[in-house]
């Protein structure tokens, strides 16, 4: 599948009709989502998606998991705490005739067995509402994934994220693949400007290989 085609599929997805600020629900736009998955596979030749088991943490309306399924992931498991998001996400998947699994759970509470998940992809809450939420997601992702974790974090937190990944979450490597502009449309009443650009980093983390993966 070509990048343009992927982006146009993702652009057709339904997004939150009533976003919940306490969950920091912001849609992952088609531009970012397509590059997040496509660039890595096609240009950097990381073999993390196609024919793999991929989990999408905090999937919202399903964009990243759907992108993985479109890029031939063998099994995609998308998880969110919010039932309304999951309903939209599963309809989005159905619309594109993609076969994906969804689970309703708090990422922090889910218990996993075995090294089945190869790659975790996520656009975690940036922690503007609940401080440190993005790193909580990352800590779980690093335990679940056996191959790679792709995640977005604010560029302003780059040093902090790197330190946490290497020191606290036992990452073998933590690499910023590119810097992206995350355009946040005016979704919530407290947003004063019509649209805001936030600089975010796309990270690729490689988990340590000797973890038991049972959490």
């Amino acid at each position, binding site marked *: 599948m070509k990048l343009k085609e992927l982006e146009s599929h993702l652009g057709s997805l339904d997004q939150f009709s009533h976003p919940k600020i306490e969950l920091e629900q912001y849609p992952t736009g088609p531009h970012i989502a397509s590059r997040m998955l496509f660039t890595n596979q096609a240009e950097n030749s990381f073999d993390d998606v196609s*024919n793999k*088991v991929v989990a999408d943490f905090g999937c919202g309306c399903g964009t990243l998991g759907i992108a993985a399924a479109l890029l031939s992931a*063998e*099994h995609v*498991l998308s998880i969110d*705490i919010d*039932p309304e998001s*999951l*309903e939209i996400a*599963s309809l989005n998947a159905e619309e594109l005739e993609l*076969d994906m*699994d*969804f*689970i*309703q*759970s*708090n990422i922090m*509470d*889910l*218990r*996993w*067995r*075995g*090294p*089945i*998940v190869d790659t975790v992809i996520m656009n975690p809450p940036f922690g503007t509402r609940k401080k440190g939420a993005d790193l909580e997601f990352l800590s779980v992702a690093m335990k679940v994934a056996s191959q790679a974790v792709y995640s977005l974090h604010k560029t302003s937190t780059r040093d902090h994220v790197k330190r946490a990944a290497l020191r606290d979450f036992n990452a073998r490597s933590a690499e910023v693949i590119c810097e992206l502009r995350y355009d946040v449309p005016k979704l919530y009443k407290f947003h004063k400007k019509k649209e805001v650009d936030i600089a975010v980093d796309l990270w690729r983390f490689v988990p340590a290989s000797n973890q038991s993966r049972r959490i």
Partner: protein
Amino acid sequence: MRLLTHNMLSSNIKGVVNGFPLRIEAEKVVEKNVEMNGDFLKKMFEKIEWKAFVEASRGMGYTELPEEADTSMLDSDEFLSRFHHALLELHLEEGALVCPETGRRFPVKKGIPNMLLHEDEV
């Protein structure tokens, strides 16, 4: 929900020691055909907990998997296609996943298990 997902989920209730495997209560199972990927299946075979997988497939009404399996069976096309079918084509659409230790039921609706915990379970 596919049985591949089932094979990696444990009961997540506070205090539960042996939360795996969750017992399946199937009210509705659907089948969706997907193309078979032999290499993927061989890789998954190493990672799956076979006993839990066979039990789960029976819970879904599929009884064609052998009680025990070893890697030599992966040479058989017949075995591979059964493994493929149970792992990726059967979906629990309506029913529940039951914690083996406490009996707590996690409902499955429209294919989506609800693993949210009550306040006193976290």
